[in-house]
C-alpha cells in the first residue's frame, strides 16, 4: 500500500499532533502533484498522509502593512490570477502561471512547490527574488527562515515534512520604483519543466536611472535555487546602461554553473541562456519599476 491512512486535520495543531503520532512515518500532503508520483514510483514510502490543503491557517493572499502573506496551501492557479500579486509582485504571478498545466496549477500549491526542493521551481525562483521568508510550524512552535535557507539539495528540503508544516510565505510588497519579472525557457509552451527560469526584482532610486538594489534569481544552475550575487554586486548602485548590464550578465553566466545535461542542454548553451534570460527579466522588471 502506498499509504494506510489519509487524514484530514481540522486545524494546524491537530495536523502537527497527527504527524507526531506517526513518529516520522507520516507526511504532509497538499496538492500532491509532486508527492503522489513519488509515492507511486516508490521513491518515498509513508504510512499516513496528513492533508493540509483545507487548513484555514494555510489559506489567503493578503497584504499586511508592507508585507504580502501567502498561505502555503494556495494553489498556483490562485497565485497566477491574484490581482494583488499581479500588481505588487508580478514575477510570482508570472512564475505560477508557467507551472506545468492548468490541471497541475489547480492542484499544486506554493508550499508543496517549495518543500519539493527543486532548484528551478517556478514559484521558488520568483519568491527568492522577492526576498521571501517562510513561516514553519512544528510542535516546538513556529519559526521564520529565509526561503534560501530551506534548500539542501534537489529533492531535499530543510523542512521536514514528517514533522513540520510550511504555513505561509511573506515578502515585501513591491512599491513605487520597484519592479519584478519572470522569464522561462522550456522545450515547448506547456507541460514542460524549465530548461531555465529567471526572476529579477529591481529597486530604482529617486532619479529612476540608478539601481538601488537588484536581485537576480535563477535555476536550475546549482543544487538549490540560485542568486547571482556577484552579478548583483556589479549592478547595485550603478546606472542602468548597456555596458554595465552586459558586464554583470557575463559575471552571472560565470558564477552560475549549469552542467551538461542531455535533457536540458549543454553547459555552454545554458550559460549563454543565463545571460539572455536575465537580460529579458531585468528589462521586464525595469519596465515594472517605471510604472
Amino acid at each position: 500500500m502506498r499509504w494506510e491512512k489519509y487524514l484530514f486535520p481540522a486545524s494546524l495543531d491537530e495536523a502537527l499532533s497527527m504527524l507526531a503520532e506517526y513518529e516520522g512515518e507520516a507526511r504532509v500532503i497538499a496538492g500532491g502533484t509532486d508527492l503522489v508520483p513519488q509515492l507511486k514510483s516508490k521513491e518515498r514510502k509513508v504510512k499516513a498522509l496528513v492533508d493540509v490543503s483545507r487548513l484555514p491557517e494555510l489559506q489567503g493572499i493578503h497584504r499586511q502593512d508592507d508585507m504580502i502573506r501567502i498561505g502555503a496551501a494556495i494553489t498556483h492557479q490562485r497565485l497566477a490570477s491574484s490581482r494583488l500579486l499581479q500588481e505588487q509582485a508580478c514575477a510570482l504571478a508570472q512564475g505560477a502561471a508557467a507551472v506545468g498545466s492548468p490541471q497541475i496549477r489547480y492542484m499544486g500549491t506554493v508550499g508543496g512547490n517549495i518543500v519539493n526542493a527543486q532548484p528551478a521551481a517556478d514559484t521558488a525562483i520568483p519568491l527568492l527574488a522577492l526576498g521571501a521568508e517562510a513561516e514553519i510550524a512544528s510542535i516546538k512552535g513556529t519559526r521564520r527562515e529565509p526561503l534560501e535557507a530551506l534548500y539542501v539539495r534537489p529533492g531535499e528540503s530543510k523542512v521536514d515534512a514528517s514533522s513540520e508544516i510550511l504555513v505561509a510565505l511573506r515578502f515585501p510588497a513591491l512599491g513605487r520604483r520597484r519592479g519584478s519579472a519572470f522569464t522561462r525557457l522550456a522545450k515547448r509552451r506547456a507541460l514542460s519543466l524549465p530548461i531555465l527560469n529567471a526572476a529579477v526584482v529591481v529597486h530604482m532610486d529617486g532619479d529612476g536611472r540608478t539601481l538601488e538594489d537588484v536581485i537576480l534569481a535563477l535555476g536550475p544552475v546549482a543544487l538549490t535555487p540560485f542568486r547571482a550575487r556577484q552579478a548583483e554586486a556589479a549592478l547595485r548602485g550603478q546606472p542602468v546602461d548597456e555596458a554595465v548590464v552586459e558586464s554583470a550578465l557575463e559575471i552571472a553566466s560565470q558564477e552560475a554553473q549549469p552542467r551538461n545535461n542531455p535533457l536540458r542542454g549543454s553547459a555552454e548553451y545554458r550559460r549563454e541562456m543565463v545571460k539572455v534570460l536575465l537580460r529579458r527579466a531585468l528589462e521586464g522588471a525595469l519596465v515594472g519599476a517605471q510604472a
Partner: protein
Amino acid sequence: MSEEFSFVGKPTAKLDAPSKVTGQAIYGHDMRLPRMLYGSILRSEYPHARILNIDTSRAKALPGVKAVLTAKDIPEIKIGWARDHPVLKAGKVRCIRDEIAAVAAVDEETAQEALELIRVEYEELPGVFDPEEAMKPGAPVIHADAPNNIQEKMRQSYYHGDVQKGFQESDVVIEDRFRLPFVTHCCMGTSFCLASFNPSGDLTVWSSTQMPFLYQRDLSMALGMPAHKIRVIKTTIGGAFGSKLDMYPFEPICILLAKETGRPVRIAFSREEEFVASPTRQPVICDIKSGARKDGTLTARQVSMILDNGAYSSWGATTPLVMMLTISSLYRVPNVKYDVVVAYTNNPYSGAMRGYGNPQATFVLESHMDMLAHELGMDPMEIRLRNANQPGDVTGQGVKITSCGLTDCIQSAAESVSWKQKRAKSGNRGVGMASMIHVGGGARIYPSDGCGSTVKVDDFGKVTLISGSTDMGQGADTVMAQIVAEELGVPVENVTVINADTDITPWDVGAHASRTTFVAGNSARLAAADAKRQILEAAAESMGDSVQDLDMKEGRIYRKGEPEEWIPFEKMVRSKHFQLDGDVVLARGWYEPPTEKQDKEYRGNISAAYGFATQAVEVEVDTETGEVKVLKIAAAHDVGRAINPMAVEGQIHGGISMGLGYGLYEELMVQEGRVLNPSFADYALPTVLDMPEIDSIIIETDDPAGPFGAKGMAEPACIPTAPAIANAIFDAVGVRIRELPVTPEKVLKALKEKQAREEEDR
C-alpha cells in the same frame, strides 16, 4: 465537382464520435472479462549481457500470482521480420527492452510487485550503440549468425540510369550527411493485448492491431497453432500510427500466460514501458550527393544510408523500400543510386511509424533541393516547379504516375504563405517549402494488397458493410459508409460498418501505406454496386421495367427522368425477400489494386495511385535563444478527391503536429542503449500552444482508379513538415541544420559559427 454527389465530398461527422464523447466507447484498456488476470513483463537491466540465472521462486510464491514464465517454460519461439527475435530471452539479452520473464496475477499491483521478486543474474557484456561503430572489426557481436553485425537480408541496392554520368553533366554537385533521430508514436492509448482460450482451445485475442489478418497469421506461426483456431478482434484503438503493424513479444507472451493459467490475461503497458518498449521510427544516417544543371534541372541523386537495426529485425529497417520511392521518384531525376546497409546494435529496434521512412528520406531530399537552389541562386520554389512530376510520368523505378497535382500543390502552398513577398527578406523571419510523394493506391509489398467487403441490406433498409478494413480512429469507417451510401443510393444514416473481427470480416492486408480509403473504399464500392444491382433487378422484375431504366438515390427507387415517382428501397428489399423463390440482399466485393510486385531490382508500379503534397512554412527565429517559432503552415495535399473533407483536414492537422514535433521538439534520447526520457514530461510532443496557424488546401485531381477519385493521404500529412521548417530557417537566418530535431541549441550554435565565419571573411 462534388455537387453531383449526395454524400461524397460532404464533411461528415464520424460514426463513432457520439460514443467517444460520452465515454461509452470501449477501448481495449476498458475491457474487463470474468476471471481476468493482469500480466506484467520483466525487462532486461542491461543493453547487452549474458543471463546466468533467473530465479522466479519468490515471485511464484507471492499471493495472487497465478503464473510466472521464462524461456525455459515455453517452446522456443522466434518472431520478427528475420525470425531473430525470441519472445522470452534465455542465454543473452541484447537491448533494454528484452523480455526475461512474465507474470500473470489477480491485479496490476500484484503483477508489478511480483516482477520485483524475480532475481536475475547477469554478466554484463560490452555494448555497441552506433551502427557505424557496430560494423567496425572488433565490435561486440550481437547475433552469432551475423559476426560483423550486418543484417545482410536487409541490405538493399537500387539504381536507375548512371549517376556518374549524371554528375559529370552537372553544373553543381553538393554532398552532405544528414541524421534522423529516434522518435516514437506516443499513442494516447498504450500497447495492449487481451487473450482468452475457450475450453476447446480456440483463442480469442482482443488487440489494437492495425492488421488483424496478418496478425492472426503471425500468431499462428509463433504459437504453432492453426490459424483457424485464432480469432482476432480489434478493439477501439487509442491511436496507432504504425506502432500496431507488427506482432511484438508481449503479445505471444500474453497468450502464453492465458494458456498457462486457463484464464483471460491482459497486458497494458504503462506510459514508461510504452516509451521504452514500443517500437520507434527508424533512425537514419544518410549521405547524399545531388547534382543539377545551371537551369535547375536535376541530373543525379546518389544516396547511401546506414540504418540502426537495433537488437532485433523489425519493420524499421525495411523502410528503405518506401524511401526508395521518394529517392527514385520525387521530382524527375534521370539518374539515381541508392544503397542501404543495416547494422545490429544494442539499441531498441524500430518499427513502422507514419510515413514508413518517407519523413526521413524527404527531410534529406528536400533539404538538399533547397541547398541546390542556393548554390544556383535560384528560388527554391522555381527549382521544384522545374522538376515537378507530371501526370503520365513513368519514373526510373517504373512508377506510373496517373493523377498528379504536385505543381498545383507547390503553387497553392506558396501563395498561402505569400512566398514571393516573404522570401529572402532581411530580419529573422523566413519561408520554406517541401514536397512529397507517397503511395496513395495501396502498396504491393505482400502477395495480396486486396480487401474484401460484404454488404447486406435488411428488410428495414439498414445497410451493413462488413469490411476487412481497420479504423484506428482516422475515420475510415465513416468514409466507407459515405462510399456505400453514395454507390448504393441510400442515406448515409442507414449505413453501419462492421469490421475488425477475423471470424466475421473478409480479408484485408491492414491499415498501412495510407491504403484504406483507396483499397477498402473500392472494395466497399464494388459490394455496394452489387447490392444496388440486386435491388434494381428485383425492382425491374416487380415493376416490369428494364434495369437500365431504373435508378436509386438516397433510398428512393425511381425511373430515370421521373424522380418524383419513387418507392422506398426497403419496400423492394422486403418484397424480394418475402415471396416464394425469394432472396435477401447479400452482396460482395473484392478489390485488388492493379499494381505490380517489384522485380528483383525493385522496379515496378507498386501502387495504383500516388499522393503528392507541398507544405510551406513561415518561421520566426529568436536569434538570442535559437528558438524557432512556426507562424503558419500552408499544407496543399493532392488527395484525388476528399470523400470526407473534415476527415482529410483532420489528418492534415494531426500529421502536421507530428511533423512539427519531428522537426523541432521530439527526440527519444537513447544513450548507451537506454532511454533517458521515457515520460511525457521529457519527451516534448506538441501541445496546443505549440501549434501554428494552419491553412489546409485540398487539391482534387480525381484519380481514375480511386473510389470516386480518392487517393490515400493520411501519412503524407506528416512528411514534408520538418524539411519545410528547416528550409524556412535557412531563409530566415541563413543556417542549415542537418540533424533533427532542430533544437534551439543547434540553431544558436550554427548562428554563432556563421557569425564567426563572416567575421573571418572580413
